[in-house]
């Protein structure tokens, strides 16, 4: 429906000679531009405000190594890596969710709902509770936990092909089991370990440095092009396996590659920042609502995810400056509030 309605507003760009062409829905371009500007504004605000106020020229000068004394530490060690971590993690989670929701044909098929985040949390909790490992070991545990969970869910759900609803159901099952395991791990830990485990489990960006930014940046650089390339197949897969096969899409292989991309993005993001809730679920849905375009809307989702996480992180830092609450609390409230609003207001108006 939407695709038909939008076709009038879609421009087709062709490179000279017509070898390469790109369908560009006008509305999606505007939405992406607005989102990009919003991301830029929030980024500037989070770089310049805080306990130590800086002007924009001061920040720019600092980035070139000529800022006022002390600003170098504030900007390049504290604020910039945290900002970049938020941008990248937000984008990675939203793209991961967009792919998985599209693959499973279900708005609930996002990685946090079908258990990958809980799996990452289990991996990290085991590291936190059973070893004296630091941040890096915890992240590795999270990465491993998320990947193993995803593979297990995929293998359990695979039976003569992949069925979207079956994957969501089995994912919910595995997720529920892992949640219990996590609660259990927390009861078996010393109080101190349990507190840090709980804080990790909420997902946050406090104290994130360049070592957290790097892996997410590399993962995005490698995986986003693959996601974009396969993204066109996603729209065909959404029409159903038979229709997609008819259009010449190798269904199972495309699904496996896209699933792998989604899982890796989610696991890398979770390893860096903990299982931040709701971005993977709400980011793509918001993007889709705004662009009103069919398909997974990967680019708009990435921008939306980045914007949501940066804005949430800024919000929770400024609202509770002394407590250092994890940003997962803010995304939970925002995401939950968004869904509640959609349910109470938007859907009522439409029905």
């Amino acid at each position, binding site marked *: 429906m939407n695709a038909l309605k939008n076709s009038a507003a879609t421009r087709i760009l062709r490179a000279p000679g017509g070898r390469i062409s790109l369908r560009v829905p006008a509305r999606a371009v505007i939405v992406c531009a607005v989102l990009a500007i919003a991301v830029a504004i929030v980024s500037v605000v989070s770089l310049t405000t805080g306990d130590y106020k800086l002007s924009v020229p001061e920040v720019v000068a600092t980035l070139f190594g000529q800022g006022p004394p002390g600003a170098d530490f504030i900007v390049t060690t504290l604020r910039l890596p945290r900002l970049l971590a938020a941008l990248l993690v937000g984008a990675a989670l939203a793209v991961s969710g967009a792919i998985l929701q599209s693959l499973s044909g279900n*708005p*609930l098929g996002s990685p946090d*709902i079908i258990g990958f985040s809980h799996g990452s949390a289990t991996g990290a909790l085991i590291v936190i509770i059973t070893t004296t490992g630091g941040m890096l070991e915890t992240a590795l545990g999270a990465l491993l936990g998320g990947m193993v969970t995803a593979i297990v869910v995929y293998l*359990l*759900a695979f*039976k003569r092909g992949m*069925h979207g*609803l*079956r994957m*969501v*159901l*089995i994912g*919910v*099952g*595995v997720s*529920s*089991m892992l*949640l*219990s*395991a996590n*609660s*259990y791990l*927390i*009861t078996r830990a010393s*109080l101190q370990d*349990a*507190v840090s485990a*709980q*804080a990790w*489990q*909420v997902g946050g960006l406090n104290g994130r440095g360049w070592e957290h930014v790097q892996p997410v940046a590399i993962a995005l650089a490698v995986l986003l092009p693959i996601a974009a390339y396969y993204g066109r197949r996603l729209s065909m897969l959404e029409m159903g396996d038979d229709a997609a096969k008819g259009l010449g899409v190798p269904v199972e292989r495309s699904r496996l590659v896209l699933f792998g991309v989604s899982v890796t993005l989610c696991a890398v993001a979770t390893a860096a920042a903990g299982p931040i*809730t*709701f971005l993977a*679920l709400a980011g793509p849905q918001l993007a889709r609502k705004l662009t009103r375009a069919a398909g997974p809307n990967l680019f708009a989702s990435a921008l939306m995810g980045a914007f949501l996480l940066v804005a949430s992180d800024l919000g929770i830092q400024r609202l509770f400056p002394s*407590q250092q*609450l*994890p940003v*997962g*609390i*803010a*995304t*939970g*409230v925002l*995401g*939950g*509030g*968004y*869904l*509640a609003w*959609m*349910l*109470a207001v938007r*859907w*009522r108006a439409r*029905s």
Partner: protein
Amino acid sequence: MVVAPPAEEAEQLKPAGARTNLLRLAGIVLALGALGFVFILSIAIGTKDIPLATAWHVLWNNDGSSEAVIIHELRIPRTLLGIAMGAAIGLSGSLMQALTRNPLADPGLFGINLGAAAAIVIGIAFLGVTSILGYVWFAFAGAAVASVVVYVLGSAGRSGSSPDRLVLAGAAVTAMLFAFISAVVLLNVEVFNKFRFWNVGSLVGRGTDTLLQVLPFIALGVLIALILARPLNALALGDQAASALGAHVTATRVAGAIAVTLLCGGATAAIGPIGFVGLAVPHAARLIVGPDHRWGLPYSMVLAAILLLGADVLGRTFDDTEEVQVGIMTAIVGAPVFIALCRRRKPARL
């Protein structure tokens, strides 16, 4: 599209109906027998293992021996609590799946467990509640509020509630409550320390008092649920078809929501959040008896009681010094069952 005839006519049309019902009856008797067996195991197995013969003997003759004291004062209350709460959770899951026509409906997924948890956190953090008997009322209120909010959010607007909207409403409420709980708990270590032990779900240390406190709510919930069996069968055909068949759709939904709140709120209040039983058991019941709720609901109660009590018994056998809580065990036992059900065939349609 073929419109299915009302249940009564369908039975008259099917000569095999009487025989099927006999089989279903035999099945439930068998299941009750299995429950009896788990009951005996639950009385015999624990930190102090009591031989089955002795357990059986002191069960009927309270002779004042240490075995008799353990059995009558600890294990029987715990076992009865397990059976009652298992039945309540199974029934509430079955009811939720029928009301929402959603195979994913579950107290955990719909935010009801977290509603109870959030209320308990408020109780511990701001009102200084420390005992399990104190938790009970907070958990009950929280579960009630959460399920009402989820239901209102999920069914607001003229189109009425739909499966997707209810699950999304549950996800919304869950996310906000988790954020709230995390904030309170992270700012106050003592609250966290109490909360983390309630949060796993356990039958330990909740005796006859707990059972008696929540039993009236559970009993009322069971009554409402069983009365709803017939209208729920009509509801399974879709709202319009149900109205055409003379079922009162809104009244059924409201009464169902009340029953779910009573059952799930009561159970979560008494023993903490228990995952999986409400999700997995109704699928198993449907697999055995088909979509008829007049059979499905009682089957869910018995099967869930077996699952919860069996999981509790299993949890006692793992470690000599410390038990694995029943909430963990239901997940470990329930998840593979659930996954097997999902794999065996397409997810059951409601």
